[in-house]
């Protein structure tokens, strides 16, 4: 009997243009300048960060962008303990939903400069930005969030 073929290499490479859209572009451009640009919906008062071009509940165009300082609280988090391909950091590390002050939505990011066992929901955190030469139109312009030790009261 013929030995069955069990593998077949099938290399694909596909390049795409990414169209960020006008709303998302405002946010991404802000990140390259260490700014977190939010937008409010006049219909329901929701503040989006990152903001799209219009409110997904009211379907109205959002108001002009304004800057938030990025300070906020940990809304929820988990500790990643498992290694996987493509991982950038050695586990264990903390992945959190950050609720920035003034925003109605949450940002996912890392929480570092703190032991994982010391992180808690409600912990006050602030963004740590990368150096000037690393700034880009990407959320990676924020290296991670870290606990606020002075002036930032827990929620």
């Amino acid at each position, binding site marked *: 009997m013929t030995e069955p073929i069990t593998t077949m290499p*099938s290399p*694909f490479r596909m*390049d*795409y243009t990414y*169209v960020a*859209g006008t*709303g998302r572009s405002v946010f991404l451009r802000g990140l390259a300048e260490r700014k977190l640009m939010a937008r409010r919906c006049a219909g329901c008062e929701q503040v989006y960060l990152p903001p799209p071009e219009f409110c*997904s509940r009211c*379907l109205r165009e959002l108001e002009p962008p304004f800057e938030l300082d990025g300070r906020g609280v940990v809304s929820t988090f988990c500790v990643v303990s498992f290694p996987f391909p493509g991982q950038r950091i050695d586990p264990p590390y903390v992945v959190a939903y950050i609720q920035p002050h003034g925003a109605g939505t949450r940002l996912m990011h890392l929480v570092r400069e703190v032991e994982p066992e010391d992180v808690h929901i409600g912990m006050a955190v602030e963004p740590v930005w990368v150096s000037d030469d690393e700034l880009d139109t990407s959320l990676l312009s924020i290296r991670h969030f870290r606990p606020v030790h002075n002036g930032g009261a827990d929620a």
Partner: protein
Amino acid sequence: MRDVAVVSFAQSPCQAANRRDDMADILLPVIREAVYAAGIGRDDVDFVVSGSHDFYEGRTFSYIESLDAVGAWPPISESHVESDAAWALAEAWSWLQLGEGDIALVYGIGRGSLPADLDQVVPAQLDPYFLAPLAPHRDAIAGLQAHAAIEAGLTSEQGMAEVVVRCLDAATGNPLAQRSGQVDVAQLLDAPYVSSPLREHDVAPIGDAAAVVVLAADDAARRLAERPAWVRGLDHRMDTHYPGVRDLTTSPSTRRAIGRAAELAGFTTSDVDIAELHTEYSHQEAILTNALELNGAVVNPSGGPLAGRPVTATGLIRIGEAARQIRDGNADRALAHATSGQALQQNLVCLLEGDG
């Protein structure tokens, strides 16, 4: 069977490349236009279903982004097909037939401009063992089909150019077309081959657009449209995936789909005034005309895909355009056809009718 009709249709302009709008932004104005034209609010929509393809977007579950334009809060009843949105309309039609609701919103988004090079993407849609490793040019299989169709006497390079001339001329009346104008056959035949016997004009120009159709059943349809375009028959069939086992000069799946659609409708292609055909290549008009036994109907009065092909929105636009002709009183009966896959592999046929 319930009476289900197209009560509204809108689309964005076919653009070679839209670099301003993300998936939600390209869709939102089109939804607004279609919903406004139907005189309803989005709370009146019972079911939302869409069609698009990750191959063109370059990421998985890409259509999720478009839901921001639908207003998916509070949570909605929703579905998606990974295909041309004409198949989403087929799902909505079935859903309405089941009596699950009265109004369905169908949308298609096609962004063929996002792949930097379709020659990288098209082979990935093929059989992974025998065809994909050969990495055929995006129009290679269509070229094989066109050559076979010419050899079978269905058309000629001259005949194909005549189809293009007629479509581009018709498209001068369609402000949303990507390509239109008065050209002559001799001028077209002077152009070099892309994938012989296909020239650039024989290949429907790929681009970006969104389209929205609102379907309604029974009294809702009569309430929302002065002259609803009733979907009297609808069916879709597919031929086998591997082109090598097909006779590329015929379309048995189209033939079977029109047979079933005509049975449901109680009329057939000889009764239709206009037909909107999803011709991705000029030679396919001859193959489809044969399979559908079209006889005397005006084909692609909108200009058809040869005037603009926003990939997975293209088939839904055929249904919307055919319905428009009925709703505007230009036709009493119309046919719409949609295709998906290589060389007319999958085909959908829809027969529409206005009140007498």
